[in-house]
C-alpha cells in the first residue's frame, strides 16, 4: 500500500504546485459557478419580466376605473412583472420602442381597452343571471311532480319572466389586448401568466370557486433556488474534466517524458500506479467540491450539503473518469492528441448530460444520447444526493456509476502499457 501512497503524494504535490493545473481544476470551476450563479441562479433579486401596460379604461375625471386598476394591481401582486405605464394618449408600440432605447429588448404590451369595467360588469351580471335562471329551471323540474296547478302556473310565469330578462341582457365580455414579439422566448410564459390572472378575475367576479384544487408540494424538503441546482452540476462536470482531460494529458506527458518508464523499472505494479492516480483525483475532486460549496455558501448562501452518499459518489466518479482518462492516454501517443481527444469528449459531455440544464429541455434525439453519457448518471446521482435527498435516485445512479467505474478502470489497466513492446 506504500507505493500507491507514494505515487498519490507525488502526483498530488506536482499538481498542487502547477498554476495551470490549479486554474483549470479549481479556479475555472469557481469562476464558472460565480458567472452561472449570477446569471441563472435566482439570486441577487429575482429577475422580472418587463411589460408595458396602457390603461385606456377611465372614468369621467380621467382616473382609471376601479376594475382596470384592480387588474393591474393583480398583475403587480404576482411579483413577476416589472410594469411600465404607457400614457393614455400615447401610441403604445412607439412608446414602448422608445422606452426600451437603442439596445432594444422584448416588447410586451398589455392594453386595457376603454369600457373594460362596463363590459366586465355586464358580462358578469349576464353570467350570474344565466346561472341563476338555469338553477331555477333545474329545481323546478325536480319539484314539479309535488306542486299543484296554481303553484306550477306561478313558477312557470316567474321562470318565463326571468328568461326574458336574461335574454334582454347584451352579450358583452371584456377583452384585453396583449402585444408580444414572436421572437421573445418568454412570450409564452408572459401570456400564460396574464391568462391565469384574467381567469382568477373571472372566477372572483362571478363568485365561482375552482372545483379542482392543487395540493402543491416541493420535490425537496427545503426551498431551493437555481444556484442550488448548478452546484452539483458544476462539481460533476469538473470532476469529469479533471479525469478526462487532466488524467489524459498528465499521463501522456509523464509517458512522453519517460517518467512512467522510470517508475516501471522499479517494483511498482501497474495497478499501484493507477490506484495512486485515482487517489490523487479523489482528493482533488473532494477539494474541488469543498471549495465550490464554500464559495456557493459565502456568495450565494447555498444549501447544498454533501453527505456520505455524495462523498461515495465523488469517489466513484473519480474512479470512473480517471479510468476513462487512463483508457485515452493508453490509446494516444502525444500530449497534443491527448488534449484534443480529451476536450472533444469532455466538452460535448459537459453540455449534454444535464449538468447545466435538465436533460428534458433538450430535443428527443439528444435526450437519448445523454442517456449513454456517464456524466448524466454521475451528475444526476450527485444532484439527488446533495439536493433532493432522493434515495432511489441516488442508489440507481450510484449503481450505474459503480459499474461504469469498474469497467473503465479495468479497461484503463488493460490499455496502460507497463512494458515496452
Amino acid at each position: 500500500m506504500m507505493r500507491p501512497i507514494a505515487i498519490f503524494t507525488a502526483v498530488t504535490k506536482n499538481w498542487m504546485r502547477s498554476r495551470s493545473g490549479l486554474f483549470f481544476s479549481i479556479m475555472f470551476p469557481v469562476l464558472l459557478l460565480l458567472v452561472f450563479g449570477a446569471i441563472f441562479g435566482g439570486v441577487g433579486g429575482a429577475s422580472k419580466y418587463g411589460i408595458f401596460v396602457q390603461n385606456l379604461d377611465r372614468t369621467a375625471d380621467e382616473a382609471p376605473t376601479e376594475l382596470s386598476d384592480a387588474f393591474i394591481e393583480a398583475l403587480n401582486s404576482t411579483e413577476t412583472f416589472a410594469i411600465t405605464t404607457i400614457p393614455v394618449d400615447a401610441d403604445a408600440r412607439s412608446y414602448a420602442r422608445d422606452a426600451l432605447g437603442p439596445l432594444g429588448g422584448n416588447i410586451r404590451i398589455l392594453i386595457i381597452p376603454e369600457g373594460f369595467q362596463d363590459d366586465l360588469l355586464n358580462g358578469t351580471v349576464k353570467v350570474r343571471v344565466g346561472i341563476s335562471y338555469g338553477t331555477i329551471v333545474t329545481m323546478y323540474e325536480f319539484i314539479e311532480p309535488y306542486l299543484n296547478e296554481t303553484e306550477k302556473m306561478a313558477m312557470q310565469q316567474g321562470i318565463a319572466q326571468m328568461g326574458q330578462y336574461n335574454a334582454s341582457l347584451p352579450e358583452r365580455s371584456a377583452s384585453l389586448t396583449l402585444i408580444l414579439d414572436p421572437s421573445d422566448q418568454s412570450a409564452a410564459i408572459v401570456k400564460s401568466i396574464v391568462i391565469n390572472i384574467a381567469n382568477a378575475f373571472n372566477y372572483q367576479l362571478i363568485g365561482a370557486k375552482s372545483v379542482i384544487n392543487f395540493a402543491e408540494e416541493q420535490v425537496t424538503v427545503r426551498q431551493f433556488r437555481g444556484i442550488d441546482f448548478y452546484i452539483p452540476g458544476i462539481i460533476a462536470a469538473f470532476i469529469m474534466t479533471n479525469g478526462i482531460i487532466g488524467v489524459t494529458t498528465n499521463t501522456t506527458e509523464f509517458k512522453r517524458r519517460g517518467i512512467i518508464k522510470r517508475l516501471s523499472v522499479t517494483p511498482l505494479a501497474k495497478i499501484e500506479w493507477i490506484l495512486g492516480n485515482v487517489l490523487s483525483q479523489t482528493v482533488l475532486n473532494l477539494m474541488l467540491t469543498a471549495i465550490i460549496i464554500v464559495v456557493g455558501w459565502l456568495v450565494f448562501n447555498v444549501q447544498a450539503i454533501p453527505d456520505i452518499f455524495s462523498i461515495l459518489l465523488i469517489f466513484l466518479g473519480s474512479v470512473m473518469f480517471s479510468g476513462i482518462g487512463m483508457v485515452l492516454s493508453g490509446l494516444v501517443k502525444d500530449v497534443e492528441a491527448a488534449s484534443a481527444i480529451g476536450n472533444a469528449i469532455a466538452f460535448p459531455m459537459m453540455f449534454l448530460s444535464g449538468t447545466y440544464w435538465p436533460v428534458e429541455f433538450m430535443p428527443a434525439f439528444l435526450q437519448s444520447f445523454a442517456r449513454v453519457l456517464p456524466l448524466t448518471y454521475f451528475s444526476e446521482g450527485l444532484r439527488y444526493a446533495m439536493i433532493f435527498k432522493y434515495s432511489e435516485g441516488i442508489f440507481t445512479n450510484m449503481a450505474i456509476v459503480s459499474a461504469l467505474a469498474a469497467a473503465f478502470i479495468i479497461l484503463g489497466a488493460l490499455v496502460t502499457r507497463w512494458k515496452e513492446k
Partner: protein
Amino acid sequence: MAKTVVEVSSLVKQYGSLRAVDGISFELYEGEVFAFLGPNGAGKTTTVEILEGIRPLTSGSAKVFGFDVTKGEDVKEIKRRIGVLTQDFSALDKLSVKENIDLIGGMYDKKLDTLEVIRLLDLEDKTKEKFESLSGGLKQRVGVAAALVNDPQLVFLDEPTTGLDPKARREVWSVIENLKKLGKTVFLTTHYMEEAQVLADRIAIINKGKIAVIGSPQDLISRYGGLKVLIVRKGGKKLAETLQNKYGGTTLNHGGDVFVKVDDVKEMWQALSTLTDMNIGKEIEIQTPTIEDVFLKVVGGRITEEGELK
C-alpha cells in the same frame, strides 16, 4: 574470479522485419563498469530494457543475478536489485530534488536514507530546488541518485551524458567513477568513444544489433587500434624523405608535419633515437590509437556527436 551478474546468450529482439538485437552473447562481472558502445539504433537500449525486465525478448536467454528476465516473479526480484538511469531521464517538474528521490525510494521495501544519497551525489545545496529549475547535468545527477536510492548491486546507466555540455559530462563521469569505487556493477550505454574508454573496464562495440568486439579498452586498442604515430611538427619534406627511407610508413601533410607509423614500442624508441641524433630541434608528438580507431576499424565508420553512424 569475479561473480557473474548478467548472463546474456544468443539474445534476439525482432520488430517485424527489423532485428534490433541479433543473437548477442555477453557477461557482466561484479564490480566492473561495462560499456555498450554503439551508434543510435544499434540495439543498446533494447538490450538494457530486456535486462531491466520491461521489454520482452524474442529468443535467446538473459539472466540478471541468475533470475530469468522472462519470468514474472524473477523480474520482480531483478527490479528490487537494480538501479536504473533511463535514457533521457526526467522527473516530476514541480517536485524538489529530495521529493523526486523520495518518490523512487518509495517504490522499494528497503532503501537508503534520501539525504545520504543526496550527499553521495554532492547535491546537498540543491535538495529543495525544484527539478524543473536544474541544469541538464544536475538533472542527470538526480537521476543517478534515484538509481542508487535502493542501494542496488547493479546500476544501468542508459546514455547518461547525451545532450550534456562537456563540463556537465565530466561531472557525470566523476559520479560514475565514484560508483565504481563504491563497488557497484555498472552497465553503461553510450555513443561517446571517450566516455567508454575513460570509464569502462570492458567495452562491447555494438552495431546493427550485433556485438562486433568485446574486451578491455587496452585489449581492444592493442588488437584493433593500429599503429602508434610519431608526429614531427613542421618537420618538412627533407626530414620526411629521410625517415621514409628508414621507416616505411612516413607521410607529410600540407602543413609540413611529418607522420611516422611505428609497429611497436621498440620501433618507436628507435625512431625517437634517430630524431635525437639528427638534432632537428622540432616539436615531437606521440599519438597512440584510441577506441575511436578501434571503432573505425571494426565498424568502418565514426559516430557523430548526435550518435549517428557516418
